[in-house]
C-alpha cells in the first residue's frame, strides 16, 4: 500500500484521463467534427475555386488545428478543479510537474494525434497536393503536441478563475503563433516541392523546449490557481 512511483502514477493518470475522454465518445469526436466543419466553412466563406483553395489549404488546415486545440485546452484541468480533484493532485507526494505531463499527454492523444491522423482526409477536401500529405501529418503530430503543452500553461493559470472563459485564448494565442508559422510553412514548402525538413526540425526543437519548460510553468500555475 505504499505510494506508487512517479512513473506508475503518471501511467495511472494517463489511463484515467484517456478513459474519461473515451467515456464520452462525443468528446473525442467533437474536435474532429469541429475541424471538419471549419474546413467545410472555408470554401463557403471564401468561394469554392479549387486552385485558390489548394493555395490556402496549408494555412487553413493549420489555423483550424490550432483553433480546435484552443477550444479543448480550456477543459484540461477544468473538471478536475471543479470537483476538487486538483487539490488532491497538488497534495500528492509525486512531483506535480511530472503528473501534469500525463494530463497533457492524454489531451494530445485524444485531440492532436487523432487530428493529425485524420488530417489527410480534410487536406484532400481542400485539394492539397498528395505529395504534401506526409509533411502535413508529421507537422501536425509535432505541432499539436507543442500546442497542447502551451495550452496547458494557459489552462493551469486560468482554471481557478470564477469565469476564466475565453481569457485562456488571449493568453496562449500569441504563444501559438510560432507553431502556426512553422507548421504552415512546412506544409507550404512541401506542397510547392521545396524540402520541408528544416521547418519540421524547428517544430521538433520547439517541442523539446516546450517539454522541458511547460511542465514547470503548469505546476506553478496550478499551485497558484488552487490558492486563488
Amino acid at each position, binding site marked *: 500500500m505504499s505510494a506508487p512511483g512517479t512513473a506508475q502514477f503518471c501511467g495511472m493518470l494517463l489511463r484515467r484521463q484517456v478513459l474519461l475522454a473515451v467515456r464520452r465518445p462525443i468528446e473525442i469526436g467533437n474536435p474532429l467534427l469541429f475541424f471538419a466543419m471549419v474546413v467545410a466553412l472555408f470554401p463557403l466563406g471564401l468561394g469554392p475555386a479549387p486552385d485558390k483553395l489548394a493555395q490556402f489549404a496549408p494555412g487553413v488546415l493549420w489555423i483550424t488545428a490550432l483553433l480546435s486545440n484552443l477550444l479543448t485546452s480550456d477543459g484540461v484541468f477544468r473538471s478536475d478543479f471543479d470537483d476538487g480533484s486538483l487539490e488532491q493532485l497538488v497534495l500528492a507526494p509525486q512531483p506535480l510537474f511530472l503528473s501534469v505531463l500525463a494530463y497533457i499527454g492524454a489531451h494530445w492523444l485524444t485531440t492532436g494525434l487523432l487530428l493529425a491522423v485524420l488530417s489527410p482526409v480534410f487536406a484532400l477536401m481542400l485539394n492539397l497536393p498528395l505529395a504534401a500529405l506526409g509533411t502535413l501529418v508529421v507537422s501536425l503530430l509535432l505541432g499539436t503536441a507543442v500546442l497542447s503543452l502551451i495550452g496547458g500553461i494557459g489552462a493551469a*493559470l486560468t482554471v481557478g478563475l470564477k469565469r476564466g472563459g475565453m481569457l485562456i485564448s488571449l493568453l496562449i494565442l500569441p*504563444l501559438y503563433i510560432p507553431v502556426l508559422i512553422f507548421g504552415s*510553412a512546412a506544409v507550404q514548402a512541401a506542397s510547392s516541392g521545396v524540402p520541408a525538413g528544416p521547418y519540421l526540425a524547428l517544430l521538433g526543437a520547439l517541442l523539446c523546449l516546450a517539454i522541458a519548460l511547460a511542465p514547470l510553468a503548469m505546476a506553478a500555475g496550478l499551485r497558484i*490557481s488552487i490558492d486563488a
Partner: protein
Amino acid sequence: MWPIFHKLGSPPWLYAISGSILRWLLPLTLLALGIGMVWGLLFTAPDFRQGNSYRIIYIHVPAAVVALAGYYVMALAGAISLIWRMKMADVAMRAAAPVGAALTFIALFTGAVWGKPTWGTWWVWDARITSMLILLFLYLGVVALYEAYDNKEAAGKACAVLSLVGMVNIPIIYKSVDWWYSLHQPASIKFTGDSTIHASMLYPLLWMIVAFYALFTCCLLLNMRTQLLQREARTQWVKKLAAGTGNN
C-alpha cells in the same frame, strides 16, 4: 548589494525612495520630452520624400523601442518575484504591464497614422509590425490575467509565470515572424530604407529614445506607488501616511 536587495523588499522604503527619485526625474523627463519635441518638430529639415509626415518618427520609434524593452523589465521582475519571493517585484511587474501596453499601442497607432500618407494604407502585415501586434497581446494578457484574479498576491505569481513564459517566447516569435515574412511573396509596399537616416534627424531621435526610457521609468514608479498604497492599505505605515504624519 544584499542590503539594498533586502531593502527593496520593504514597501515603506521603496515608497520613500521612489518618491525622492520621482521628485527630480519627473520634471527632468518632461523637460527632455519638451526639448526633443521642439528639436524634432521645428529644427529638423523635412524629409525629401515624405515631407513633414515623417516627424511622427519622434514618437513612433521611441515608443516601439521602449515598449520592447519594457517587456524584459516586466519579465525580469516576474523572475525575481518567483525566485526570491520578493513581493515588491510583483508590484513592479504589475506596474510595468499597462505602461508597456500603452507604449505598444502608441507605436502601433502612430505607425498606422504614418502608414496612411506614406503607404496609402493603415496596416500591412509586415514582419515587424506583426510581431509588435503580438507583443501588444502579450502585454494585454498579463494585464487581463492580473485583473481576473481576486487574490492579488496569487495574481502577481500567475502573471510572473506568464511573463516568463512570454519572455522565452518573444525571441521565438520574432524569429518566426521574420522567417514567415521572407517566406511568402513580399508585400507590395515596404518600409522606407531605414539605415539612410540623416544625422540631423538621428540625434533628436536618440534624444527622444532616452527621454522615453525616462518616461517609462516615471510611469513605472508612479504606478508602483499607487499599487503599493492599495496593497498595503491596512498597514501601519500607510495609515500614518494617510494621517499626514509619515514622511513623503
